[in-house]
């Protein structure tokens, strides 16, 4: 895109401050490098490319941690205590040529060699640690490389963060532009802020960095839209599901079990797709290794507790019924559905009205019933998926603990708008890919988009 060379940035810092974690979060890939709460997890320099469109715009290099800065600074001073006056980079080059660079300070030499080859460095700081002499020496060594450094304050979300102490210490060595970026729970606009800060620091690359910033914003929005479409697709599939059954207890029980099973599997698939979309591993959320096989869930979708957990009001009728979560509708063969938007919506409404007063009477007359998934279940599904979406959007790719749905604030749902969209889907059994008469149509695709927009307007 331009004749400049690709911008290269080294990620440097003390050992075990989360350099690899930061990179994982930046390139959104949980498979990058090794992350462990141990010193020296990264032993070699590893690069990651960040593309702008089709070109590689930025190369980020993960380096091993600096572990013996006090010793190294002593050695540097020893090396340069000759007659000649050496500036910072010259001293570092002198060190890189020295025998200790291949033995005692081999790891540090790798870092400094990489930083010298890059246009800038991200200096990662674990703000849970106090500012110690070794950190000051580390900064002194790194600034000898004469490369612009952007300090990244990691773990700022932690209770024991000493953010202010670090800011002051960094200001003392002239690093005033500091970015707070928790790689485990990064701020939503963290990446943008990073590019912005780098653009200020590296004016020759400003154009590229600002373009990267814009790209990040676009991609985030695209991810959100795609996720909402996935959730809306799940909801339409479940809402439109109709299963025909007789009124005999055995058949009914069997049909309910089958229905619940289909819905659970569908929800699991949606979760899996969301995890994929945000590039997390499947085991970042699911408890067991084979949840699909037995369909078990940490929080079962059809349990009363699950409903209460999301404070969804369950009507008396359903609670008293044989199966929570299944509404039994009367099958009306004469009523033509899906003749059009308006008719469909009306039919959906009529369907529910019928459900309220005539279930038993008409059911006995006809001998057939249709099983649909009840409204509270749909609300629960929507809320749960939206909550997962929020969590995933806020989750860094360095996070090691699995997602827990309880850790974030609950979502809100505009029940009225939601219900009207759901009612439309209910009127179209052929819209459910879970059902036996699935038939894709432009109307279904449009309904999914509309529902996604409804979900979006509630949670921006």
């Amino acid at each position, binding site marked *: 895109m331009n004749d400049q060379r690709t911008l290269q940035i080294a990620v440097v810092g*003390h*050992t075990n401050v989360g350099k690899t974690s930061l990179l994982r979060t930046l*390139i*959104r*890939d949980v498979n*990058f490098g090794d992350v*462990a*709460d*141990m*010193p*020296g997890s990264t*032993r*070699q*320099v*590893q*690069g*990651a*490319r*960040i593309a702008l469109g*089709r070109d590689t715009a930025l190369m980020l290099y993960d380096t091993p*941690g600096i*572990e*013996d*800065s*006090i*010793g190294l*600074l*002593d050695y540097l001073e020893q090396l340069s205590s000759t007659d000649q006056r050496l500036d910072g980079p010259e001293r570092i080059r002198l060190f890189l040529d020295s025998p200790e660079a291949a033995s005692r300070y081999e*790891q540090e030499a*790798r870092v400094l060699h990489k930083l010298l080859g890059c246009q800038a460095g991200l200096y990662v700081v674990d703000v849970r*640690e*106090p500012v*110690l*002499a*070794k950190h000051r020496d580390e900064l002194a060594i790194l600034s000898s490389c004469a490369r612009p450094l952007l300090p990244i304050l990691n773990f700022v979300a932690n209770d024991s963060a000493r953010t202010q102490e670090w800011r002051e210490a960094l200001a003392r060595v002239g690093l005033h532009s500091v970015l707070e970026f928790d790689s485990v729970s990064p701020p939503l606009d963290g990446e943008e802020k990073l590019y912005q800060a780098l653009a200020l620091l590296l004016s020759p690359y400003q154009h590229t960095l600002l373009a990267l910033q814009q790209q990040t914003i676009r*991609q985030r929005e*695209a*991810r959100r839209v*795609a*996720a909402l479409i*996935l959730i809306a*697709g799940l909801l339409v*599939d479940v809402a439109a599901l109709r299963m025909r059954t007789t009124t005999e207890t055995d058949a009914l029980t069997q049909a309910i079990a089958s229905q619940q099973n289909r819905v659970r599997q*569908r929800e*699991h*698939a949606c979760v*899996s*797709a969301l995890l*994929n*979309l945000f*590039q997390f591993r499947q085991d970042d959320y699911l408890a067991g290794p084979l949840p699909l096989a037995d369909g078990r869930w940490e929080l079962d979708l059809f349990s009363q507790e699950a409903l209460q957990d999301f404070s969804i009001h369950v009507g008396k009728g359903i609670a008293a019924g044989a199966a929570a979560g299944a509404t039994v509708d009367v099958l009306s063969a004469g009523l033509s559905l899906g003749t059009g*938007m308006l008719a469909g919506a009306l039919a959906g409404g009529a369907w529910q009205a019928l459900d309220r007063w005539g279930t038993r009477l008409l059911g006995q007359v006809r001998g057939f019933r249709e099983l649909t998934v009840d409204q509270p279940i749909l609300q629960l599904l929507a809320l749960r998926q939206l909550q997962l979406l929020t969590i995933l959007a806020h989750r860094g790719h360095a996070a090691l603990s699995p997602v827990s749905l309880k850790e974030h604030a609950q979502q809100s749902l505009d029940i009225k708008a939601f219900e009207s969209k759901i009612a439309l889907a209910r009127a179209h059994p052929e819209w459910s*890919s879970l059902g036996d008469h699935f*038939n*894709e*149509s*432009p*109307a279904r*695709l*449009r309904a999914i988009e509309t529902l996604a927009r409804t979900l979006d307007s509630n949670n921006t």
Partner: protein
Amino acid sequence: MDKSERISFYQAWLCEAIRLQETQWGARDDSKARLLAQSAPTPLKKITSRAVTLSQDSGIASAVAQIKKVGWAVVIFTLVLAVLAGSITSFSALGNGMTPVNVVWAFMTLLAFNLLSMAVWCITMLSPKASGGWLTQFWPWLTRKLARGPNISLAAQAWWSLWHQAQATRWVMSAGTHVIWLTVSLATSVFMLFSLSTREYDFVWETTVLSPDIFVNWVGILSAIPQWFGFEVPDSQIVRMSGSIPQANAEATRILWSSWLLGSLIVYGIIPRAILALLSFLILIKRSRLTAPEITSPYYASVLNRTHPAFFAPDGSPPPSSSFVLSTGSTLQKDDDWKTQYVITAIEPDPKDVWPPTGIGSAVTSTSPIDSRESRQQMILTLSRALPQCLVITCDARHTPDRGTLRLIADLADFAKYTLVWLRHSNVTDAHTAAWKTQVQNLHGIELLSVDESSNVMQWFGRHHE
């Protein structure tokens, strides 16, 4: 996007089917497909290659092939029906030649439905929610009925989804509608030509309540465009004379009227439909480019991330020598060299901690904590003079045991007979404590105490008392 980067509609279809399957039913096991995709040159080709492999393995490709086959059969069947409908239209417009043809009725039969449906089409195209009318349901419905087998619904879903993404579903249906009407009209005109060539028809117009002028004007207005296209049309004199009774100089009038009817059908029926069909197809061809997978979309970004990770293997430099070894063999070995009994010091302690720690007896010499380069050097000097028998180095377990710290511990341990690393606050993070344990274990001869109790330290002193 450059031209070499284009993929066929069929490939886009397979990609979409796989995308839908993975987003609706969870990710596929794609280890083989990913391996094959790695040799593809560009991201788009990688995605396509992966999707083609996956869909061939799971039968989606054959479902797509079947839908294509059945879909074409349905289209041909519909067109045959349309030809049939054309022949019926032609017959009902002209009759069997025994009775004179009422030109008003013939015109209506030939064009009324056609024009009406065109008007409906125009109105639906203006509405943003238009989906294409009953045909939207019919073709896919019939195709779905006829195509049997697994994955058919997925393949059909993918087809719709592709056109939906390209915002072209209404144009798909428009193309269908116009092609059908075009076929009907063309067939009608062919059958009409045939009938007109082989039979003799008289043309009349009749009215009971209207004035003949209205009819004359009506024909005049309708004739304007066909005339412009070169069709011969009856002038007002002939129109007026054709009222009710067949005329004497019938030969010329017949030709004029049949030319007028045919001209009207072509101008009002065939040409607009042909133009609209062409327009729909042009739009479809243009939009079909939008059906290619959008490689920057989040789903494909995540797929690409797996087929083509954003990171690469470590640089060419050899991996560092495994774990470093520190020399901890004390240089001072003679027993009588030890001058002090017990010394306790601390490396980078938490300023909030009391120093010296409570519970450490007065027999123990406590030095000031080591928290800077100067205090390090000071400590080494102090120890070289004190030469304690038992040295306790207090460390904070919340800090990472880095090589600099370990080297310092090893350096300090050189001046003592027995050294203990006393790990404080070790219950805070387990991973750190474990790291400390392994790292201190590597320093042979140094013990580690991870219990935050000074009585344990005093016990350790007692054990090593000589």
